[in-house]
């Protein structure tokens, strides 16, 4: 019988939640790496028992952990993320030039084609890759050294590379997103990159349709439609039908289009999910009601999903990497909150249950569907 394994990164450690395919009775394992921030964990699509975790604190820096037995045991692997060459500068909050400085790994994306290869998105924004299962990491420096790099500026959360999307049909194509520089794409395996922000309009920057400078919060893609990308920008839900070459807004009838997460149904490429957040200055759900919104039309027409979610006095946030889907026949949707809840829906969002209520603030949620 199939089962699911949810990998939860939090401010104070990681947790692994497991259930059989009915997704009713959950086993909670953790905290792993107790007391450390775990920004992200993700398993290899080729070897689900191989899982990588990003473990860090402001005190002791960055560690990367690898498990080869589904999270039962872990081994620290390489943690040296050295920028290639002399890193140069980007813009600081006050507009001055600021040296590129490594802070942490935000996102780990195991390769679709090689279980020893993993991409890492880091702050200050850069893309690294290991080809030896984490023993050593090397920068794909063509991104950071793009001619616009010196203009990139951090968002409030830091200048992080938080989204890495590999094309399932073209191994040379990768899309990444950086706050607050925007989205970028390589079509040559990471040697060269181009900004893919045409159509984005951001009131928070001086030139609203600039080539770079947009605060992209998250991007997602359905593997059967690799040219269709969905984006939760700071404000605005955006869609691209041409792998990011151009974007158009699909916020439609949402009550607010600010938010962080966006994800797509495992079997319905036009069914997408967001969690609207009140505004850029008020990071909790509108009216204290936690609502997931679902569009079955690829955007523009949205329906609130509330069954099982708190509809009063709820003031949590849902961060950019904290939503994921399983691939069971009746697609499961999962998200975690800054209040420590992890909610699950085993029916595409129609109804929700909290698997756990009181974890530390959830930073990321990933799901593995196991045979």
């Amino acid at each position, binding site marked *: 019988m199939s089962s699911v394994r949810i990998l939860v990164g939090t401010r104070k450690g990681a947790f692994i939640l497991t259930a059989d395919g009915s997704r009713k009775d959950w086993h909670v394992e953790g905290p792993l790496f107790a007391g450390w921030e775990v920004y992200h964990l993700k398993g290899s699509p080729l070897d689900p028992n191989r899982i990588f975790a990003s473990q860090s604190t402001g*005190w002791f820096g*960055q560690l990367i952990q690898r498990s080869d037995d589904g999270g039962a045991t872990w081994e620290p692997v390489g943690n040296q993320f*050295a920028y290639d060459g002399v890193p140069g500068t980007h813009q600081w909050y006050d507009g001055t030039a600021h040296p590129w400085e490594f802070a942490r790994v935000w996102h780990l994306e195991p390769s679709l084609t090689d279980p020893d290869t993993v991409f890492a998105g880091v702050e200050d924004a850069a893309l690294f890759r290991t080809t030896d299962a984490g023993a050593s990491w090397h920068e794909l420096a063509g991104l950071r050294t793009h001619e616009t790099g010196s203009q990139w500026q951090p968002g409030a959360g830091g200048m992080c590379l938080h989204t890495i999307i590999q094309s399932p049909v073209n191994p040379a194509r990768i899309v990444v997103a950086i706050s607050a520089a925007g989205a970028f794409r390589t079509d040559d395996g990471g040697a060269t990159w181009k900004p893919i922000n045409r159509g984005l309009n951001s009131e928070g920057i001086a030139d609203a349709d600039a080539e770079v400078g947009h605060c992209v919060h998250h991007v997602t893609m359905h593997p059967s439609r690799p040219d269709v990308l969905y984006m939760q920008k700071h404000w605005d839900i955006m869609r691209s039908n041409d792998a990011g070459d151009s974007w158009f807004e699909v916020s439609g009838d949402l009550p607010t289009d600010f938010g962080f997460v966006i994800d797509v149904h495992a079997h319905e490429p036009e069914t997408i999910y967001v969690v609207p957040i009140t505004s850029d200055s008020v990071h909790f759900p509108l009216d204290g009601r936690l609502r997931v919104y679902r569009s079955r039309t690829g955007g523009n027409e949205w329906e609130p999903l509330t069954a099982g979610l708190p509809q009063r006095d709820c003031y949590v946030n849902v961060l950019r990497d904290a939503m994921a889907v399983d691939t069971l026949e009746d697609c499961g949707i999962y998200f975690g909150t800054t209040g420590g809840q992890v909610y699950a829906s085993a029916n595409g969002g129609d109804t929700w249950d909290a698997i756990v209520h009181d974890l530390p603030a959830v930073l990321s949620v990933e799901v593995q569907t196991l045979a």
Partner: protein
Amino acid sequence: MIRVVLPAHLKTLTHVSGEVELEVTGPVCQRTVLDALEARYPVLVGTIRDPATQRRRPFIRFFACEQDLSHATPDEPLPRDVETGREVFFVIGAMAGG
């Protein structure tokens, strides 16, 4: 024999429950003690000092003999009582945050 006490998180990483005892050849200073520590426990590389610059991480402190040695240069000799093992060299996670 140099005696070192690690903060709780680094004890967990190294699977050490008490003090670490290190043999240090040559002058006993922060650099040589940390070199020996990292050689014994490679997982500590990057957790106490920046691996590229070798500078102490901002929220790490070094205490010994009731002195804060954090701002001493890496090559400054440590107190004689640390060198002889009479006193412990403490690696501390600074008080900060919640």
